[in-house]
Every structure is written in C-alpha cells, then in structure tokens.
C-alpha cells in the first residue's frame, strides 16, 4: 500500500545509509510531505545550526498521495534550515521526481553531513548508493540529467539536481528537476551544494497499491472534471501562470521598477497572449490535466533556438516588470538561464531590480558594477547580471548573498530599497491595496511568500455567501467576511484558512492549482478525506486533516521561534505603509496599508492559531495539538 514507503537516513560524512518504516501513528499526526518534514527538521537539528554546515539536514520528501489517483500528485518537498533566511527553509516542486521516488520505495530522505568530494545519490527499488559526481559537477541542470541518464543507460531515470548556482552556494539557488520544475524558495540548492551533493537520481518499479481502485478511478475522474471545467484552469492551460500577471497588471497589482510603481503600461509586447504566439503546445507535471507550462523555443538573441519551458508569472516580474524591460526575448532568455543555472527567479529578479534602483540613486556606481550600465530597462544588463550572480563574479558575488547580507555589504541606506520579509524577497505583486494578501506574506512560515497562505480568490470579488460557504468548513466561522479586497474585516480568517488549506495540500503532495488557490470551487478538505480513503485506506475526517495542518504549521512556527523569530519579523517594509500606490484603477490607486489595522489583523491571526501576543504557542495550544513533548524523536 501507499503507506509502506520508508524513510532513509543518509549520512554523507560517513557514507552510512539507514532505512526505517514510518509508523501509522506518525502518518495520522503528520501525513507526509511537508508535514513530516516539519517534524523531521525540528527533531534532527539543534537551535542555531549553521545552515551551510554539515549539521544542517536536507529533507526530501513526497506527500502521502503522491503517485496515486488524486489528480496532480506530483509534488516533491525539500526542507532544511534556510541558508537565505536562517529560519524554516522549505520549497516545493512539481515534475516527476516524487512519484518516481515512491515507486523506488521511499517517501522521505534525511540527508546529513557533508561529502568529502562531490557525490550524487542513486536510489533504485529500495536501495541507495552514494556515487562519485565528478562527471556532473560544474554542469548545468539539463546536462546533469542527460549525463546521469546516459551513464546509467536508463531514459526513465528522474533526477533532482542543483545547477552551477547551487555549487557556488548562491543563497537562493534552486533544486531542479526536468527542464523547469524548480524548488525555488529559501535556497535549498545552496544547502545541497554545501553538502557536496550534486544530484539525486531515482528509478523505481515497485507497486503503490491503491486501496479501492475502482472508486479511486471514478472519483479521480470526477475531481479532474471539476477542475478542468473551471474557467481559470482553461485559461491557465493555454497561457500558464502568465495569465495571472496579465489580469493583475490590468488593475495595477504588480510591482515594477523595484516597487516604485504598481502597473506596467508599456507591456502589450509581453502580455500572455503575445507570448502564446512563440509557444508550441503545453506540458504538465505528473497526472495533471491542467498543464500550465508552455513549451517554447527562444526566438532571438544569444540563445536563439534553445528549447525551454515556462515562463511563469515570476519570469515576467523578474525579467520585465521589475527591471523595467519590455522585450519578450529577455524574459525567455532569463527564464532559460535561471532554469539551467538553478536559481530562484523571484529572488534574482528582485536583487537585480534592487541593484538597478541603487544605481539610479547613485548608491552603486560604475566602479561597483565593473562598468555595466545598470539603468532600468537595460535588457542586456539583466542577462549579464544573471551570469555574474550564478558565477559570483564582481557585484554578482554580493547580490548572490540575498537581500539582507547584500544590503549589509553595500551599506549606505541600501536596505531602504529592499522589499523583503524575514530576509526573503516579496513576490512581484503589489499588496498595498490588498490587506489580506499583505498579511499572508508578512506571516508566512518560510519568509515572504505567496504560496503559504495567500487568499488569491479574494481578488475575485466573490459574493459574501460564497465566501461564507468556503471559509466556514470544516471549522465553523461566524465572524465577518467581505467581498471587497481593500477591506481589513475578516481577512485574517481567510488567511488562516488558506494557510491550513495549503499546508494540507503540501502534506498530501498535490499541486496548489488543484485546490482553492485560483479556483474558488476546487477540491479541499472534504474531497481530500475521500481521496485519502480511496487511495490509501486512511480514514480521516475533513476536520482531522485540518487539525494535522494546524499541528504542522505550529511545528514550523516552533522551529522559527527556536531560531529566534519574534513578532517584529512578521512585518512588512516601511514602503508598504508610507508610500501610496501611484497607478492603477481608482480602487487601487493611492493606497497604503494602515499600520494600526494591520497590527490588529496580526493579533487576530495569532489568536486563531492559539498563539499569544508575541506569536508564541500558548501552553494549551501545545497540548491540544500534541506538540508539548517535541522534540520527541519518534522517527
């Protein structure tokens, strides 16, 4: 059955590998994926561990429904203490790696220590081998995968790898699989790089037994129809996540020129529909019928003729809106380069745009940039900076350190122009008119993030009755809810609800596009209860799944608190409160976040969690969720 997958402890220093089963008790408390990763991280690290040292752990996992019939069960989760923020490090990627890892017999890998020389892991049907990586060290993401496949003589091998950026310990380096599936946030690529671990290759042919195959098939069909019949899925299936950028830019909810403006008016040439002409079909992750990745060939420039996949919302943000560029080729080339170097698109786009603003303000000069003209709109400079950051050359070496460390090195007021939370850059969207979205990024467990609790459907202006149906299950909620996205009322509950929803989906290993993220009537707790039963035989009510999500979220919080996180870290940079938006429709123009109301939102948010005013877990919360004995070392 799906629940007999094992956990492997791999010590790269000694070369020792140990495998253990995962008890049913642990499954019922944490499910798997991000849930068990939170437990493993809290139990396998000590406070203050050096993120790039041998005592930090790198956790790789598959959610409990990965590889089963639950629609888009493709997600791999990677966790560890973040080299970027020093807090909870966690990233999630699609593709085909996690299912293959399950067919190879494993759900969780706990990687410790540091290899003497570059190595990679070979995992095949229950066996794990540490192999020499001399042929792939120094290679890009796609070459690495091709070389391993050729060397092993098996085209079906799935590889998770770091690129050159990860080897060079760029603090926001990705882990990657396939062409463009990226675990981008919190610098997990640097974590692998610090362990001299270039890649993990898996191949498996072991069964995952489906407990009730007939029902699972039929129910999966029903869920797929529910998802693909939605307008949003069909838009996404043609335009990818670019369509979100198009829609939000139309209103003025994007970030341009390093947060100076909130709308890009000269953007017709980089609209999703314009890009669609350069794409030739779509591709998707394992078992997914939404297929949101476009296939394209770079039409022009130095990389003309190169195949790649994407681009995404963040690619437009990073290589067009933020640095003020308007050429589609820059986006497509930039996307290709970060995919092959293995870097977080979001972070690198923010760092380059930040450097551009510093250059504009005279804080950085030609001497700092080695003569490179870092003016906004210089397309060539953007591409050049990607190379420099990946190789850590000149200014790139400083920018590779991430927002806070780079600002410290540059000094001179440069921190004022950073747009970050907990040392991680914000998504290239503008949350000043939308308090709910702002609360999400301010409180996300892995630092600024839009995929931990963002109530994106808040932007749809849904009738209150619909909101009430969605947000009052599986836990009753009778407080206020409003359709108006500029409002503060009831938004903290929405953020709390979404946080539980995304946590649950990450424990299950399903993609967020298959739950209430962009589609208001997509599967959530009730559906998951059935999916779990049909596929694994595990009987959990929607409320029990919710409680698991609460427990896991709180464990992530406990990890952060242990690393010294304080209430003051759940906050936004001053620009959110002091500099009104300049562009966009009337509802969005001239908006800032109100400090007092925002404080109150955070108070409410903490209260829903059962945290005290300082954001620490109350004793009764610890007890209710069974977290009072952590670390309990049960695995």
């Amino acid at each position, binding site marked *: 059955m*799906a629940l007999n997958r094992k956990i492997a402890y791999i010590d790269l220093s000694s070369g020792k590998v140990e495998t253990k089963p995962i008890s049913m008790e642990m499954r019922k408390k944490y499910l798997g994926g991000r849930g068990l990763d939170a437990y493993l991280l809290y139990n396998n690290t000590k406070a203050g561990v050096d993120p790039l040292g041998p005592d930090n752990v790198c956790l790789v996992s598959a959610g409990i429904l990965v*590889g*089963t*019939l639950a629609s888009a069960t493709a997600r791999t989760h990677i966790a560890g203490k973040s080299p970027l923020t020093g807090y909870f490090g966690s990233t999630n990627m699609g593709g*085909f790696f996690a*299912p293959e890892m399950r*067919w190879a017999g494993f759900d969780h890998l706990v990687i410790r220590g540091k290899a003497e020389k570059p190595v990679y892991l070979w995992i095949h049907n229950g066996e794990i081998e540490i192999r020499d990586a001399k042929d792939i060290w120094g290679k890009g993401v*796609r070459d690495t*995968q*091709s070389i391993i496949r050729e060397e092993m003589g098996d*085209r079906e091998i799935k590889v998770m790898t770091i690129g050159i950026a990860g080897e060079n310990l760029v603090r926001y380096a990705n882990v990657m699989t*396939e*062409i463009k599936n990226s675990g981008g946030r919190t610098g997990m690529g640097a974590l692998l790089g610090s362990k001299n671990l270039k890649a993990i290759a898996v191949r498996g*042919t*072991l*069964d*995952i*037994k*489906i407990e009730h*195959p007939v029902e*699972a*098939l039929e129910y*999966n*069909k029903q869920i*797929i129809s529910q998802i*693909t019949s939605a307008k949003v899925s069909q838009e996404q299936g043609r335009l990818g996540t670019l369509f979100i950028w198009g829609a939000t830019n139309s209103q003025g909810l994007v970030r341009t020129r390093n947060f100076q403006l909130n709308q890009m008016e000269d953007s017709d040439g980089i609209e999703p529909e314009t890009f669609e002409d350069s794409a*030739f*079909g*779509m*591709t*998707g*992750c*394992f*078992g*997914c*019928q939404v*297929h949101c990745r476009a*296939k394209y060939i770079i039409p022009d420039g130095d990389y003309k003729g190169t*195949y790649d*996949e994407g681009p995404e919302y963040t690619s437009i943000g990073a290589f067009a809106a933020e640095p003020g560029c308007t050429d589609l080729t820059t986006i497509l080339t930039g996307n290709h380069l970060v995919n092959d170097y293995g870097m977080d698109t979001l972070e690198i786009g923010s760092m380059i745009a930040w450097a551009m603003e510093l250059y504009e303000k005279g804080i950085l000069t030609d001497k700092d940039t080695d003569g490179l003209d870092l003016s906004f709109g210089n397309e060539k400079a953007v591409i050049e900076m990607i190379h420099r950051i990946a190789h850590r050359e000149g200014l790139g070496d400083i920018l590779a350190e991430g927002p806070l460390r780079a600002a410290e090195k540059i000094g001179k007021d440069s921190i004022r122009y950073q747009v970050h939370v907990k040392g991680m850059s914000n998504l290239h969207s503008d949350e000043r008119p939308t308090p709910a979205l702002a609360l999400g990024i301010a409180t996300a467990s892995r630092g600024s993030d839009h995929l931990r609790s963002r109530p994106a459907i808040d932007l749809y202006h849904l009738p209150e009755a619909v909101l009430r149906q969605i947000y009052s299950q599986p836990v009753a909620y009778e407080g206020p809810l409003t359709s108006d996205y500029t409002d503060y009322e009831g938004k903290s509950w929405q953020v709390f609800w979404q946080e539980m929803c995304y946590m649950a989906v990450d424990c299950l290993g399903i993609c967020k596009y298959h739950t209430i993220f962009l589609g208001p009537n997509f599967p959530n707790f009730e559906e998951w209860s059935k999916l779990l039963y049909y596929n694994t035989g595990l009987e959990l009510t929607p409320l029990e799944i919710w409680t698991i999500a609460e427990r896991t979220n709180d464990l992530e919080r406990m990890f952060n608190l242990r690393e010294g996180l304080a209430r003051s870290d759940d906050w936004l940079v001053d620009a959110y409160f002091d500099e009104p938006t300049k562009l966009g429709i009337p509802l969005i123009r001239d908006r800032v976040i109100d400090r007092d109301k925002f404080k109150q939102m955070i108070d409410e948010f903490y209260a829903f969690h059962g945290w005290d005013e300082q954001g620490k877990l109350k004793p009764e919360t610890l007890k209710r969720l069974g977290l009072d004995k952590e670390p309990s070392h049960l695995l």
Partner: protein
Amino acid sequence: MRKMLVTDYEKCTGCRLCELVCSVKHEGVSNPARSRINVTKWETKGIMVPMVCSQCEDAPCMAVCPTNARIRESELGTVTVNYDRCIGCKTCVVACPFGAINFDPIDHKVISCDLCEGDPQCARFCETGAIRYAEASDANKMRQREAAEKLYESLQKLDGAGVS
C-alpha cells in the same frame, strides 16, 4: 467496424496520467512499469509521444509466438495473451515494431493493451485529446480536417497577396 486508440503527439502534455490509470485499472496499483501504455519523451526538446499497441491486423507478435498464445479476441479485435499457453519467452516483446508490448517486472508476464474491454481508461482520462478511442476507419479524419484547415488558410493568404 473496429475501434482503435488514436494518439496525437502534438497534443500530448506528457503527464503520464494514462500510465497511471492503466496500471490501476489492470493491476489495482500505481506503477507505470506495469502499464500497457507508455509516454516516450525527449525532455530537452519538449517531445512527448504516447506509445500503445495498435492491435495490428497482421500482427508480428502473433506470427512469432511459438505457442500461439497471442490471440485475437474477435469482438473488439484486440490481440491479447492466453496466459495458459504463454511460456513467457518474451519473443513478442522484442518482435513488436512499436515496442508496445511490455514485460511486467512484478508478475513476470507479458502485458499489452486490451482496450479495457471497450472502455479504454487512457482515452477516457486524456482531456487534451492526445489519446482518443475512435473508429479505425475514421482515425485520420480529425488530422485530415486540421490539415485541410491549414491548407485552406494558406491558400487564402496566397489569394490575398495577389499571387494566384
């Protein structure tokens, strides 16, 4: 009247849901190694091609089988295995020009598409239309129509440019 699985590589997104539902339908497990259909990929070029048994009229697998275990089920016209006769020599696996016959690594038996007794799950779940279950004599019609449309458009362009 004979129906077949029509595959279209231009529409395939490479998600491998067909492999998943095939193995669940036939074996009750998720395991693409035991699927009757496979998506062959060239990841670095973005090419994905679903490969499945064509139920050939003059089937090489039937011709090479030393024990006559490859038999044609008359109603659907599928070429299936009679496991009472099959000795597991895998000659058919090698002989198939499409590589569409798999060898199940768990049960150690030869497996190939049986069209799910007339309701192929791969086609049922494939929403992009990369795998369709269609009348064999109509299998080309959709492609023909798409090609005709392109031809028509280009002819119109020629007219418009005053070349004709």
